[in-house]
C-alpha cells in the first residue's frame, strides 16, 4: 500500500490531489505498477520544473498503463526527465499531454518504447548548438512534433514516423524555421514524405489504373484526384465528384478485415459514383428535412447500386464486403439517435439477401424497394417518395437527440451525394462573392506551370519528392542570319561532313545475296549451281537474293548547358565557349537535318531548385528553319547547372517519340552544380540517377564535355558514354562527327 504522505514532493497542489489520484490509479495498476507510478511522480517533482508536469503526469499515467502496459509508466516519467536535462524544458508539458493519445494509438509496450526513443533522438539531433558546444537552444521541431504525433501515428506506424522524422532532420537541420515548418506538417515535402511512408494503397500509385477502369467500364474520362483524410477541412471527408474531377481519399489500407484490397476499395467508389452519374437526376432539397434527406440518399444509393450490379454482377461481392453490417437492436432508441443505424440496416438488407434482420418496417421497405426496381425504369423521384415514407414510418422521438449512434454506419466507399441535391434558394452569401480582379502574377513570368521532378539524395538513398521545379519556354529569338554566317564560315567542314553523311544516308534497299530462300533468283549463282549439279558436284543451294530495308529510325535530343561559365573566352580569336557551342550546334543541326533524323535542341540552366529553366530551341517536328536559327542565335548564358532535372525533363519528351533508338546528347562545360547545394557530390549523384532512369526508358544518354578536368566526375554520371573535348576550338568539327559515329 502506498501512503500519500510518504511521497517526496513539495508542491502543495500535488500533495492536495495525491490521495484522490492514487485511489483512482489503483483501479488500473497492480502494486508493482503503483510503485513505479510513485517513482515517476517523485522523479518529476525532483526535476524542479514546477507542479504542472507532475499534475499532467498524474492525470495521464493510468491511461498509458491501460494501453501500453504498466511497465511503461515509469519510462514515460524518465523520458520527461531526460527532456528537462536538454534546453527543451518547455516541451515537457506537451510531451506528457500527448503521451496518452500516443499510447492509445500504439497499444504495445515495445512500440511506445520506440516512440520514447524517437522523441529523445529528435531532442538530441535538433537542439541547436552554437560553435559546436553543447546544445544551448531549444529544438524548434520538438513541440510541433509532439503536438502532431498522435495524429501522425493514426496514419503511420512507428517505423514510418521515424523515417519521416529522419528525413526532416536530414534536410532542414540547418534552418530552424524550415525545421519547424516541416514538423508542423506545413511544408509540401513534409506531406509528400509522409504520404510515402503511409502503409496501404496510395491513390497516386493506382491513379492511371483507376482512370482506365472507369473509362473501360463506363466511358467516363475524368481525372482522379486525391484528398487527404487527415488534412481535409470537411468534417466527414468522403469521396465526391464535381466539375473538376473525381476526388478519392489519398490512401486506403492494403487489406482490411474483409479481404478487400485498397485498390478494390477505390474501384467500389468509382463504380458507385459512375452509377450516380448515369442514373441520378438531382432533386430539390429545400422542402426536405435533414432526416428525410439522408433517407432519400440511402435509397438512391441502393437504387444505383442495384442497377450497377445488374450490369456488372461482379460488383456485388465488392459492395457486400465493404458495406458495414449493423447489428440489429444494438442501438438503443432510448439513449441515442438511431437514424443512421436504421438506414444502414436497410441499405444492408437491400444489398444482402441473407441479412437476417427481423424488423418488420425494414423488411417491408426492402420488399417495396425490390418491387419498385423489378418494374424497371426507375428514377430518383421514385426513391424520393420511398425515403419520405420510410422516415414517416420509423420516426422516433430520440432521432433528434444529439448523441448519434455511429458504429457500423459508415459506408466508406459511397460518395457524399452532393450531386443528388439542387436548391431553389441559392446561398445568401452569393452576392458578396467578388471575382478577383487581378490574377496573381505567376512565379517566374511564364504561362506554363512548372513541372516537378524528384531529386535523388545519395546520402539517404531516397528521392526527394517533387524537389525541382522546371519551367519551360520557347527560347527567345534573335537574328537567324548570324547562324547562316556561322555555317558559311565552316563551309569546308560542312563539305567534309557531307561526304560522311552520304555514306550514312539510309539506303532503303540492300541486296542480300546467297540466300536459300529469297525473293528472286540470282542468275549468276543459279547457273553456277546448275553447272555444278550437271557435272556431278554438290550444287550450292543458296541461289536466291533478297532485299533488306536499311532505315534509320532515331530520335535525338541535344541538351545544352547554358550556365554562366559559357561566357569564358577560350578561343584563339577571343571566342567564348557559347559562341563555339553555337557554331557546333548549327553544324550538327544542319547535319542531322540532312540525315532526316528526328531531332530536338533544348537548353537549360538553373537558379536553385525552384527555378530550373528549360528552353526549347528546336522541336522534334520543326525543320531547321529561320525560327530555329533565330533562337539558336539568341542563346545566352547564365546561372548554374542542375543537370538531373533538365535531363529528366528532356527524357520526358524523348520518351514520347516513336523511334527505335533514342539518344540524349548532353553538351556541358562543367560538373552539375547549383547555388543552393553545398554538397558537390549531391547533384553528380542525382544526374547519375537520372541517367539510370533514362536508361530504363530505353533512352541512351551521352555526354560531350568541354571541361578538361571532367574525368573526375563524368564517368560517375555517364559510365562510359562520354567524350571529353580538350581543344574546345575544335568543337564545331568534333560534335557532328561524334554524333555520326554514335549513330552509324
Amino acid at each position, binding site marked *: 500500500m502506498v501512503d500519500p504522505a510518504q511521497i517526496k514532493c513539495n508542491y502543495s497542489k500535488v500533495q492536495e490531489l495525491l490521495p484522490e489520484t492514487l485511489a483512482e490509479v489503483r483501479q488500473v495498476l497492480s502494486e508493482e505498477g503503483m510503485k513505479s507510478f510513485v517513482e515517476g511522480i517523485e522523479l518529476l517533482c525532483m526535476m524542479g520544473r514546477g507542479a504542472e508536469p507532475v499534475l499532467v503526469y498524474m492525470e495521464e499515467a493510468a491511461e498509458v498503463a491501460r494501453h501500453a502496459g504498466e511497465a511503461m509508466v515509469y519510462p514515460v516519467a524518465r523520458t520527461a526527465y531526460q527532456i528537462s536535462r536538454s534546453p527543451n524544458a518547455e516541451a515537457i508539458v506537451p510531451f506528457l499531454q500527448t503521451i496518452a493519445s500516443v499510447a492509445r494509438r500504439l497499444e504495445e509496450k515495445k512500440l511506445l518504447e520506440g516512440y520514447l526513443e524517437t522523441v529523445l533522438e529528435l531532442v538530441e539531433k535538433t537542439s541547436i548548438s552554437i560553435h559546436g558546444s553543447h546544445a544551448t537552444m531549444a529544438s524548434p521541431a520538438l513541440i510541433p512534433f509532439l503536438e502532431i504525433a498522435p495524429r501522425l501515428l493514426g496514419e503511420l506506424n512507428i517505423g514510418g514516423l521515424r523515417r519521416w522524422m529522419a528525413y526532416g532532420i536530414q534536410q532542414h537541420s540547418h534552418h530552424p524555421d524550415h525545421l519547424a515548418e516541416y514538423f508542423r506538417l506545413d511544408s509540401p515535402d513534409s506531406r509528400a514524405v509522409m504520404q510515402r511512408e503511409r502503409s496501404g494503397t496510395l491513390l497516386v500509385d493506382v491513379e492511371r489504373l483507376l482512370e482506365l477502369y472507369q*473509362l*473501360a467500364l463506363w466511358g467516363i474520362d475524368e481525372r482522379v484526384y486525391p484528398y487527404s483524410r487527415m488534412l481535409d477541412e470537411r468534417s466527414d471527408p468522403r469521396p465526391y465528384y464535381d466539375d473538376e474531377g473525381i476526388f478519392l481519399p489519398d490512401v486506403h489500407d492494403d487489406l482490411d478485415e474483409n479481404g478487400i484490397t485498397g485498390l478494390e476499395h477505390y474501384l467500389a467508389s468509382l463504380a458507385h459514383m459512375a452509377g450516380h452519374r448515369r442514373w441520378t437526376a438531382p432533386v430539390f432539397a429545400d422542402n426536405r428535412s435533414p432526416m428525410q434527406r439522408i433517407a432519400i440518399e440511402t435509397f438512391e444509393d441502393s437504387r444505383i447500386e442495384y442497377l450497377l450490379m445488374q450490369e*456488372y454482377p*461482379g*460488383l456485388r461481392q465488392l459492395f457486400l464486403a465493404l458495406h458495414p453490417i449493423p447489428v440489429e437492436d444494438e442501438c438503443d432508441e432510448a439513449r441515442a439517435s438511431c437514424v443512421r443505424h436504421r438506414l444502414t440496416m436497410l441499405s444492408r438488407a437491400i444489398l444482402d439477401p441473407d441479412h437476417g434482420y427481423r424488423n418488420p418496417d425494414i423488411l417491408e421497405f426492402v420488399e417495396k424497394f425490390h418491387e419498385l426496381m423489378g418494374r424497371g425504369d426507375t428514377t430518383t423521384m421514385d426513391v424520393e417518395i420511398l425515403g419520405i415514407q420510410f422516415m414517416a414510418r420509423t420516426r422516433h422521438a430520440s432521432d433528434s437527440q444529439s448523441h448519434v449512434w455511429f458504429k457500423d454506419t459508415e459506408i466508406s466507399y459511397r460518395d457524399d451525394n452532393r450531386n443528388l441535391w439542387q436548391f431553389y434558394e441559392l446561398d445568401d452569401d452569393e452576392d458578396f462573392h467578388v471575382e478577383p480582379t487581378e490574377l496573381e502574377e505567376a512565379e517566374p513570368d511564364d504561362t506554363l506551370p512548372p513541372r516537378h521532378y524528384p531529386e535523388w539524395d545519395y546520402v539517404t538513398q531516397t528521392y526527394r519528392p517533387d524537389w525541382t521545379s522546371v519551367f519551360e519556354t520557347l527560347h527567345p529569338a534573335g537574328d537567324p542570319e548570324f547562324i547562316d554566317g556561322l555555317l558559311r564560315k565552316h563551309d569546308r567542314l560542312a563539305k567534309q561532313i557531307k561526304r560522311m553523311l552520304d555514306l550514312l544516308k539510309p539506303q532503303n534497299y540492300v541486296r542480300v545475296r546467297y540466300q536459300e530462300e529469297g*525473293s528472286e*533468283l540470282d542468275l549468276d549463282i543459279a547457273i553456277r549451281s*546448275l553447272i555444278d549439279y550437271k557435272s556431278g558436284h554438290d550444287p550450292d543451294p543458296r541461289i536466291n537474293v533478297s532485299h533488306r530495308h536499311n532505315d534509320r529510325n532515331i530520335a535525338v535530343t541535344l541538351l545544352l548547358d547554358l550556365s554562366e561559365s559559357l561566357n569564358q573566352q577560350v578561343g584563339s580569336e577571343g571566342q567564348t565557349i557559347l559562341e563555339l557551342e553555337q557554331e557546333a550546334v548549327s553544324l550538327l543541326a544542319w547535319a542531322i537535318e540532312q540525315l532526316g533524323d528526328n531531332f530536338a535542341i533544348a537548353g537549360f540552366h538553373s537558379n536553385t531548385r525552384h527555378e530550373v529553366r528549360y528552353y526549347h530551341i528546336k522541336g522534334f517536328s520543326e525543320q531547321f528553319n529561320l525560327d530555329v536559327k533565330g533562337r539558336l542565335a539568341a542563346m545566352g548564358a547564365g546561372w548554374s547547372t542542375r543537370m538531373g532535372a533538365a535531363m529528366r525533363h528532356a527524357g520526358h519528351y524523348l520518351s514520347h517519340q516513336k523511334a527505335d533508338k533514342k539518344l540524349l546528347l548532353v553538351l556541358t562545360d562543367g560538373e552539375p552544380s547549383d547555388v543552393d547545394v553545398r554538397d558537390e557530390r549531391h547533384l553528380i549523384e542525382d544526374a547519375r540517377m537520372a541517367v539510370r532512369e533514362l536508361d530504363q526508358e530505353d533512352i541512351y544518354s551521352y555526354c560531350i564535355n568541354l571541361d578538361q578536368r571532367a574525368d573526375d566526375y563524368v564517368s560517375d554520371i555517364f559510365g562510359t558514354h562520354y567524350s571529353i573535348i580538350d581543344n574546345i576550338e575544335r568543337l564545331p568539327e568534333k560534335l557532328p562527327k561524334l554524333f555520326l559515329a554514335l549513330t552509324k
Partner: protein
Amino acid sequence: MIDIEQYKITEEPFYQPYGNEVAQYESAYASRLPVMVKGPTGCGKSRFIEYMAWRLGKPIITVACNEDMTAADLVGRYLLDADGTRWLDGPLTTAARIGAICYLDEVVEARQDTTVVIHPLTDHRRTLPLDKKGEVVKAHPDFQLVISYNPGYQSLMKDLKQSTKQRFVGMDFDYAPADLEARIVAEETGIDSDTAHKLVKVGEAARNLKGHGLDEGISTRLLVYAASLMKNSLDAPDAARMALVRSITDDADIRDTLDKAIDAVFG
C-alpha cells in the same frame, strides 16, 4: 493443270450480316470491280470474303501479306529443277488464270512497290504482264481482286498509295453491335447467350481504352476464342483473362484494369 477445286469453299462459313454488305459485295462482283474491305483486326473481314466466295460459288485464293513480300511472291518466279529453270505462277497469276477471287489480306503490310503490280489487273486492262517470262496474262472473266486493310494503324508507313486506293470500291467493317456480336459468339461456339453477352461487355470495356494504351480493342475473334475456352470447361474469368487480356497487352495497368473489368462482369 491447276486443281481449281482446292480453292473452292465447300461448306457454308458462318457469317452474320449486320448491314447491307452482302448485297453491296454482290453488286461489285457483278461488274468484277476490285473491292477494298477496311476495319479493325478480327471484326470478320476475312470471314466475310470467304462467305461471299462460298455464296458465289467461286474459288478464292488468299494471300497474307507481310513486309518481306515482294512482287515475285505475288506474280511468280523461276525455280531450278533438273532440266534447268522452270516458271512457277504466284498466287495472283494463278487466280487471274483460273478466275478466282484473289484476296490480299492486310495489304498495307506489303511493301509499296509490291502493291503496284496489282495495278494493271485492277483497271480496264485486266491483264497481268509477267515481264520476266515475257507473257501477258489476260484475266479470266470471273477473276476479282479483293484487298483488306486496317486503317487503325495510323502510321505514315502503313498506308496505301492514293494511286492504289483509287482503284477499289470500299466497304467499311466494324465490330457488330453488342447484341449481334453476342449472337455471333454464341453461334460460333455454342455457349449460352448470357455468357456471350458478358464476354461482349468485356470487349466493349477494352474498346473504350483504345488510344489510352491499347492500339486496338478486343476483337470478335478473341471473344470467340474466349468462348471456346469456356466451352472446354475452363472457368469463365480465367478463360477471359487468357484469351482477352494476356494476348493484347503488356502494359501492367491496362492488364489490371481489364482483369478488374472481368471481375466486375463475371463476378
